[in-house]
């Protein structure tokens, strides 16, 4: 009997050790420097709130409204992160059908570097089949459609890796007795499809018509709740304009 108990205890200790080793693995370093932060080209900087109830509309499968603590813990490992949040406004249609159950949609105001309203942004993100937990990759496939009346329309395609966020924010929040986390965390979410970990940006109408550009989305988190998702957070999108258009660009952008 004692051998069986030892075997079971050893099994769980081994499993725990592996999980701890994975989360605190020093060889899985976070990428802190965005390739666009050192660009000489002109960039468009857009800020937005990442907190669902501060957006115009946010919806997902609505599971957050009835999930148990265990379900929330299991859900922690799946991107996207905001799925812990209830839809906003409360009566918005939920994405409960099977093909869209792991998708979320957000409509938000985009603000420029001076914090003035610059346009509207809509983001769709879905859990990606490229996710590999063993390699520290919790991937979401996401697209943005952004309309800026003074600039034109943008379509942004990107993959996002939520692993650094899970490691630094979501896991400590889940582990804490109060189920929340407070602090300062800043990280790039974009991990592709560009070779340097940048998003592919296509210009639609306006001054960016037919332009192909690069972009990076980052997030700054101040508070997170394991039960309700993001509580205090700001998102930022940086879009690098091609150098050929630099001479004609002169407004609402930051160098």
């Amino acid at each position, binding site marked *: 009997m004692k051998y069986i108990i030892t*075997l079971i205890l*050893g*099994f769980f*200790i*081994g*499993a*725990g*050790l*592996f*999980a701890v080793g*994975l989360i605190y693995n020093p060889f899985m370093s976070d990428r802190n420097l965005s390739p666009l932060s050192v660009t000489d080209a002109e960039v468009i900087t857009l800020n937005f709130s990442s907190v669902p109830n501060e957006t*115009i*509309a946010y*919806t997902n499968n609505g599971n957050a409204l009835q999930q148990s603590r265990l379900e929330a813990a299991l859900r922690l*490992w*799946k991107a996207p992160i905001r799925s812990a949040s209830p839809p906003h*406004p409360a*009566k*918005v*249609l939920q*994405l409960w*059908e*099977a*093909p*869209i*159950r*792991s*998708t979320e*949609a957000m*409509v938000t*105001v985009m603000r420029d570097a001076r914090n003035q*309203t*610059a*346009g*509207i942004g*809509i983001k*769709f993100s*879905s*859990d*990606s*089949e490229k*996710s*590999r*937990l*063993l390699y520290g990759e919790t991937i979401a*496939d996401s*697209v943005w*459609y952004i*309309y800026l*009346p*003074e600039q*034109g*329309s943008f*379509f942004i*395609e990107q993959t996002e890796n939520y692993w650094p966020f899970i490691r630094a924010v979501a896991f400590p929040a889940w582990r804490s007795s109060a189920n929340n986390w407070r602090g300062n965390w800043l990280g790039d979410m974009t991990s592709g499809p560009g070779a340097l970990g940048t998003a*592919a940006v*296509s210009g*639609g*109408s*306006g001054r960016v018509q037919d332009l192909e550009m690069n972009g990076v989305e980052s997030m700054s988190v101040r508070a997170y709740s394991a039960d309700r998702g993001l509580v205090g957070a700001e998102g930022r999108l940086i879009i690098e304009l091609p150098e050929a258009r630099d001479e004609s660009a002169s407004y609402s952008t930051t160098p």
Partner: protein
Amino acid sequence: MVLGLLATAGALYGYSVDQVREASILTVNPNGGSVESFHINVPMDRIMIGAPGQSGAVPAGLDWPTDEILADVRAEMFKIRNARDTVIGVAIRTAAKNNEEDVIDWVLHLPARGSVFVEMDATPREGGFRRGEIRAGSREFAPLDGFMTERWVANTSVEEDAPIGRIELTGTYTARSKQTDDEEENQ
């Protein structure tokens, strides 16, 4: 303990996200390319209407920004269905006036397949439909060119719970030609 380490490593290695897939319903176009139809039942599939001065917000409680810069912007979000009437994705339609230019854009997001960005002609064609070029796409749609049409079809059914109509979207996809890619590289 070793068994636990190995079992956890194996479980994490084997863990995968599987998106639910509906079989694509494509027909081959006689002049090349393939054709796929989507539709939106209105009002059942409408998730949001965002427009300034909108009476009767959808969804209830929606607070659309009143900034002057957004005065000519209208955005609608929908669930989209395939030809079998199964929900397979979500879409956004944006209509705006940019100086003298009218802009009508669609983005369709199909989680298992990718997304497609279509820029519609502002003026409807004869027959009441709009046509637009596929400007960009992700994953399955990345190597595709083509066009999409949108058309409003009013409901003629007398059933009590029938939709008031449907928006029909028909995409015609063609492979992006290698010659075009080479030309772009030369430019």
